[in-house]
C-alpha cells in the first residue's frame, strides 16, 4: 500500500552559521512535516525566515509566532511576536550543550498564493539548566508563496552549528 508521508528533501550540514534550505515545498502537497536536528555552539533562540521560489528571504513584517516554553527548571513561559520579520523560538533556546535541539514543524499552505502560510510545532532543547520544551504556532500573513526555510541562531555573528539536519516530508 502506498504511503502518504513522502520524503521531499534531506539536507545535512556541519560547521555552518546558518542553513538555507531551498525547494523544501512545492505545489504537490498542501501540508508538510519538517524535522530539524541540531547542535549550536552558543546561546541563542532558534530563528527561521521563509524563502520564495527563487531562494530569496521573504523580508516583510508578516511573521507571527507564539510559543509556550515548557521548562523543567523554571516556570513555564510565553514567547510571542506579531508583525515581525522572523519566526523566533519555534525551536526554543539553545545553550551549547551536548544534548542538542530538535524541532518538528507542520507547515500548512506554504506555496499557496491565495492563502497565508501557517505552522504548528513541537520542540525540545537540552539547556545547561535542563530540558526546554516548546509547543507553538506560527503564521506568515502574506501570499508570496513559501518554498524553503533559512535557519539560524538569533545571536548571529560567526557562531556555528556543529550540525544542522533538515528532513522535509510532504503529507499527500
Amino acid at each position, binding site marked *: *500500500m502506498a504511503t502518504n508521508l513522502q520524503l521531499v528533501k534531506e539536507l545535512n550540514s556541519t560547521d555552518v552559521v546558518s542553513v538555507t534550505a531551498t525547494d523544501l515545498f512545492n505545489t504537490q502537497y498542501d501540508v508538510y512535516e519538517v524535522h530539524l536536528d541540531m547542535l549550536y555552539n552558543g546561546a541563542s533562540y532558534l530563528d527561521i525566515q521563509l524563502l520564495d521560489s527563487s531562494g530569496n528571504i521573504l523580508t516583510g513584517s508578516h511573521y507571527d509566532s*507564539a510559543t509556550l516554553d515548557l521548562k523543567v527548571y523554571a516556570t513555564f513561559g510565553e514567547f510571542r511576536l506579531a508583525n515581525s520579520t522572523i519566526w523566533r523560538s519555534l525551536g526554543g533556546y539553545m545553550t551549547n550543550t551536548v544534548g542538542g535541539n530538535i524541532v518538528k514543524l507542520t507547515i500548512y499552505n506554504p506555496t499557496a498564493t491565495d492563502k497565508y502560510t501557517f505552522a504548528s510545532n513541537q520542540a525540545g532543547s537540552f539547556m545547561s539548566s535542563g530540558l526546554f520544551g516548546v509547543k507553538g504556532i506560527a503564521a506568515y500573513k502574506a501570499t508570496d508563496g513559501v518554498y524553503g526555510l533559512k535557519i539560524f541562531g538569533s545571536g548571529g555573528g560567526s557562531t556555528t552549528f556543529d550540525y544542522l539536519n533538515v528532513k522535509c516530508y510532504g503529507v499527500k
Partner: protein
Amino acid sequence: MAGSLIKIDEEIVSSAVASVTLGGSDWDSSYDVYMVKITNFSPANDDVSAYMRITKSGTADITSNYDDAAKQLKAFNSFANNADNNEDKINFGNVGTGTSEGVNATLFLFNFNNTNEYSFATFEAAQLDTTADFRGKQGGFVHTVASASDGLFFYMASGNIASGTFTLYGLKK
C-alpha cells in the same frame, strides 16, 4: 516512518455545505492511532465558531460528554487556558470570512475502535481569528463514553462551511 501513513478518507469543501463527516462510512478500523489534517476550515458567515464532534456509527454524537483542555496561544496578547467539561462539542474558536481566516490543524486520535474505553485526541491548531489576529491551541480532548467512535463531524455555529480540506490517515502498525 515514511512507509507508515495511510490515507483513509479525504473531504474537500469547494462549495458551501452545512457539515463534513470524515470517516463514518469510510472509516477503517484496522489502525490503533489515526492522524487528521485540516486546512482552511472557513465559514460562509463572518464571526462564527468552528465546531467538531466525533461520530458513532457515522452519526455525530451530540451528548454532553466532551472534555477538553488546551493552552490558547496568541501572537498579539497573553496566552489563556481553555478547559471545558461535559460540553456537546469541541470549539476551535471563532473564524471569519476575511483572507485566510480559517482553522489549520493536526489531530491524533486514540482508542477510537475500543468499545470499552473512552475516545481521546490531541490537537494543535493555528488560525486567524475574526479580527485577523493570529492565535491557536495546543491541547487535547476526551469523549467520556466507553464505546467505539468512527470519525469526526465538522460544522459551524451558524451557516455553512465555505471551504476546507479534511484528511484522515491511519498510522500503520
